[in-house]
């Protein structure tokens, strides 16, 4: 074990947790959230939805299998093992870090990777205690201060920034040469959404979050996941409204679900501490079908605010929050969870098939 440099996590309520640093020599501020997944850190850390957040992993043993290579898959043009081109979290907080990793596909340690990306990380703190504080008091701001690096003075609230604008692509970009043209509105899109679409005979046109895609010729619209408060994306909502008028299939995921809901006239609210993990059960409303889903969101749709043209599609079995909506007659639906998984269970990937079936239907 190397020389141990201390690091401190300070929560907005004043609680402090003293641990040791295993990431970049930097101090940061952000919103502290916890994720209950037991594996999948290379995927989670590169998920743009975590932008601005200090991520606490409740699973204590982290770094075990190192970090995979950054190689690109020639078929998709995307990195094989990551969900975006960089680490999006502000800082990582874990209980026990494995300085030594072991995996055939690892090329470096988690600590090295975080350092390269300038992301600080702490181990040796009681992550269960932190989780309970967040659970009781709700998500709060926090700072990570690494020994020798001056801590930021103020707590900064990332939700006040337009995080989507920060993580979205700036130019439209096209992937694949499939039969159906899908516009992917990139609000901070995970690459696996693109991969899932490309596996289904599509050409994906990824456009920036504020891009007016109504001018494009397409067979369907995919609204991606992304970070922060959905109310920041008024432009996107306007574009979605135009798309709905056009009537071609629309499928939203996570932030995409919230944006579609807002476009449909519903309201959103901030959850006390969000849903972040791999074990969230969602029941398909009106059926006995339940799926285990991967989730990462802090805001939710208030289903009561939906008008009669819309109906709930999925509901969370634990706390009855909305997990998705659909239009009663038109091919628009969205889910709060991540059917593209990565990381997490792939049980709901069939939703891409449903979407593509609608796309095929409307393309006729």
């Amino acid at each position, binding site marked *: 074990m190397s020389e141990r440099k201390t690091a401190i996590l300070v929560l907005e309520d004043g609680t402090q947790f003293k641990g040791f640093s295993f990431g970049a020599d930097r101090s940061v501020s952000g919103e502290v959230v916890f994720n209950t997944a037991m594996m999948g850190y290379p995927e989670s850390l590169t998920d743009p939805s975590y932008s601005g957040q200090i991520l606490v992993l409740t699973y204590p043993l982290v770094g075990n299998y190192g970090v995979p290579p950054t190689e690109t898959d020639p078929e998709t043009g995307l990195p094989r093992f990551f969900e975006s081109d960089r680490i999006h979290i502000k800082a990582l907080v874990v209980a026990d870090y494995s300085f030594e990793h072991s995996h055939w596909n690892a090329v470096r340690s988690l600590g090295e990777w975080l350092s390269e990306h300038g992301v600080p990380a702490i181990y040796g703190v*009681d992550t269960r205690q932190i989780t309970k504080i967040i659970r009781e008091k709700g998500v709060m701001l926090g700072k990570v201060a690494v020994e020798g690096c001056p801590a930021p003075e103020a707590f900064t609230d990332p939700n006040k920034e337009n995080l989507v604008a920060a993580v979205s692509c700036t130019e439209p970009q096209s992937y694949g040469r499939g039969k159906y043209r899908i516009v992917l509105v990139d609000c901070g899109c995970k690459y696996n959404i693109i991969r899932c679409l490309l596996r289904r005979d599509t050409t994906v046109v990824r456009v920036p979050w504020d891009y007016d895609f109504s001018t494009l010729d397409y067979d369907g619209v995919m609204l991606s996941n992304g970070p922060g408060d959905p109310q920041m994306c008024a432009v996107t909502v306007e574009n979605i409204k135009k798309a709905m008028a056009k009537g071609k299939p629309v499928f939203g995921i996570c932030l995409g679900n919230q944006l579609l809901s807002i476009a449909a006239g519903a309201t959103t609210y901030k959850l006390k501490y969000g849903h972040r993990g791999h074990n969230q059960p969602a029941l398909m409303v009106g059926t006995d079908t339940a799926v285990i889903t991967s989730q990462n969101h802090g805001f939710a749709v208030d289903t009561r605010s939906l008008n009669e043209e819309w109906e709930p599609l999925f509901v969370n079995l634990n706390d009855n929050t909305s997990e998705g909506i659909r239009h009663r007659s038109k091919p628009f639906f969205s889910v709060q969870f991540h059917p593209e998984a990565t990381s997490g269970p792939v049980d709901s990937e069939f939703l891409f098939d449903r979407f593509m079936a609608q796309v095929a239907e409307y393309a006729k």
Partner: protein
Amino acid sequence: MDKNIKKVILLGSGALKIGEAGEFDYSGSQALKALKEEGVYTVLINPNIATIQTSENIADRVYFLPVTPEYVEQVIEREKPDGILLAFGGQTALNCGVQLYKNGTLEKYGVQVLGTPVQAIIDTEDREKFVEKLDEIDVKTIKSEAVTSVSEAKRVAAQLGYPIIIRAAYTLGGLGSGFCDNEAELETLASKAFTYSPQILVEKSLKGWKEVEYEVVRDRYDNCITVCNMENFDPLGIHTGESIVVAPSQTLTNAEYHKLRQLAIKIIRHVGIVGECNVQYALDPNSEDYRVIEVNARLSRSSALASKATGYPLAFVAAKLGLGYGLHELKNSVTKSTTACFEPALDYIVCKIPRWDLGKFKGVSRELGSSMKSVGEVMAIGRNFEEAIQKGLRMIGQGMHGFVANKELAVEDIDGALSHPTDKRIFIIANALKGGYSVDRIHELTKIDKWFLYKLRNIIDIEHKLETFSQVEQVPDSLMLEAKQRGFSDFQIARMVLHPAPARMEECIKQVREYRKSRGITPYIKQIDTLAAEYPAQTNYLYVTYNATEHDIDFPQDGKSVIVLGSGAYRIGSSVEFDWCSVNAANTIRQNGYRSIMINYNPETVSTDYDTCDRLYFDELTLERVLDITDLEVPMGVVVSTGGQIPNNLAMRLQQEHVPILGTSAEDIDRAEDRHKFSSMCDELGIDQPRWRELTTMDDIYKFVDEVGFPVLIRPSYVLSGAAMNVVSNRGELEHFLTLATSVSKQHPVVVTEFIENAKEIEIDAVAKDGEVLIYAISEHVEFAGVHSGDATMVFPPQKMYVETMRRIKKISRQVAQGLHISGPFNMQVMAKNNEIKVIECNLRASRSFPFVSKVLKVNFIEIATQVMLGLPVEIPHKSAFELDYVGIKAPQFSFSRLQKTDPVLGVEMSSTGEVGCIGDDFHEAILKAMVSVGYAIPKKNVLLSTGDSRSKADMISAAQALQAKGYKLYATKGTADFLFHNGVSAEVLHWPDSDMKPNTLDYIKEKKIDLVINIPKNLSETELNNDYTIRRSAIDFNIPLITNARLAAAFIHAFCRLDKQDIKIKSWNEY
């Protein structure tokens, strides 16, 4: 749910055996609870009388009968149930259920199989069908070919290329399977496998691949969840029951984890399981390639472990799904608010370690392989791997203190010991790391994933750091904390820093404890809540860790809590019976308005079900850990007398630390435990004991033996090899044993006891209050003294005992109870010969036979004992064994077939792994039920007798006559045949195995021409004739019932000769 299901039969798993242990008591109890909650009338068939599930108020009706198609059909006929559950009683219940389905019984009586359909079971059990089934959905299995002859096996093996593995179909825990590196090995193993099954499978070995398991649940709406995955520390090649296992998996990426998870769901859907199943995978350590090893369409040892590892009650949920519920219609029983349709998120790691008892068996190979030999397991919980594994290595209770700081293990060939794993391999790894082996080198030799090895090296690194100090006060706080966080005990720290002599150890441990407490280095209590603290949970499922800065719970410290110390890992001599005692103590505590707190770490038990107590600490039963907990809980008292020897041994030291011990005082417990103190008390009271001495020189031993005469019982305090105790009959044997197997010196004294032959052995189980016996039960052994009481067949109430003997025993019990001021349970073993009574042993705790006598007498001894310990007024039931108009028999279950090469002979060391207890209207009926329950079949035609010395031969005459009269065909070895002939019984002579002459015993056994083998060893010494061993071992290997005790053999023979099938009454417990 299906409202037409009003009455359900649940099949239990019978006696505990290797591969099928207490986990099925837990599964069955959970299932019964789930059914009861739905108002379903439950009928349980299980002859294992020591289980919780066969206690009052669990099932509505209990039958202590064999779980065989013949008996189950009769119960079905009588009870007319609507449904049957097959998945909760291990392979025993599953096999029985498949037979009942195949022979049309279930259809005949219109009994619906609840949960997984039988066809799905058959599809997963038959390897060929299984592979076909998975081929249909493009899931990769280990390609194997089913063969029916050794030559075919050789042909297939040549095609696949060695190494290969062979497996016998339809067997328990890998019975009859193993690895073969070449044709010669194949030939031996294959011929043996064919004795278990007509079909064996030859497949390519994937030794060295990772082994990963998933526990999967599916409901009738096709909703699926995987409750837990587990990764074996030991890679493929070692049976999963023999492997150290962690949960969740540690070295799998998201892609690997979810690939295997998704496959598991695909499989469970395709096979059509409703309820729970387990999928085992081999995963290539160098790619994402995988193979499915097997699917178990039932609750298993792994599912019990998964339930305890996650807090998700798999058996309970599976039973509800069997009744027709959907997962989403059930609640998470930990949070009580969220749904059961979710996958637990752990925020800790658990580590399961098997417990072996190979030292108890003569001649067994210690090498681990593809068949299971362990007799129990432990589960340790920590917030890092080092903490969990060090806890676990202490929990297995074989004198180890963790990964390091153990007694030096002398290993000559470390490389060999690493690549040929035995039960000691983990400690060989410690030796290797200390000896400078690199992680890479150890990985090369063991194929254990480097991640685990790096973590183990961390422990060694801390050990080195600690060793640089020689005073506890010099150890910096940061290092002390780090050591505690990585699972070091105070003992380990004391040994590494202070290097004390054994006599000063306790004092030094205390010094470490006091010092670290003064520095504020103390552990914290965390909850297991299934959701990693995401939702508030009222969970009482707890563990202790140093990797924390806050307790999850409050400690009322109001003097209203009582701690019960559990019994630890199941092992030979301590198993489910102590779990029954612990659970009953906890129940009684609760019923009387106190809060019950359980400490135990055995995942196969009911006592570690968080429903059974107010608080469950799933943690160590070391002095250090118990004190950590009593410091926080400040209980009214601690119960040390219901969990067997582990808590009993803690009594004195707990008392020294001012922890209140409930019931009999620690000093008095010590007076019973300490041989010298107990003897002098007996002398004072005028109670006779077999003469004994503790001696340190050979001369003294000879002198003593001259005085008492042979045979004598030798109990060395230091054992080099083999069993610790032995009976020797002459000077030659004495010398042989004392020089070869042990050493005698001032440091290692030997206890020599006179051994009385042909004496009756009698047990007294009793409860006393302030030295007054409140209630007692006297049972007698069928076998003469000399067979360990755990291996003996026990009869209660006694059927062949002099009233005078009984009277004297009662008197002695009263004297001992008074002399030791007993308040609580106790057990005494005595010998009787011609009405002379000698006390062998007295334990001031509950014994193995407490559940048996409690259930036969229908008076709960533990409930009374607990009331006594709580200081409550006790109502003494006016019930006497004399009034019983039925007989209970407790019979041992052996697992010799799993322990290759072991001599299946009984002696002074216990070797049975479990037991059953059956009730009959008379002795014959009870013994017949009991013998059938532990796997004996009534012979059809041919019985082979070789009956040892003249005394045994004489014992057997009337039995042989009965066999002849009943029309059995008798075969015998020469001497026995002659003896029988002189007594009017004709038997055909079979020649000894080492003779070339035909007909030969060995051929007859191999060709299965014999239905029952009676082989009585000539004497109790080590120097057994090779021939006798061969007969006994072959009987086991070829699956022919074997009895090695003349008195038991005679009792069994008389019973089946006298009774016909219709004489066996199918009566439930409450009908007696």
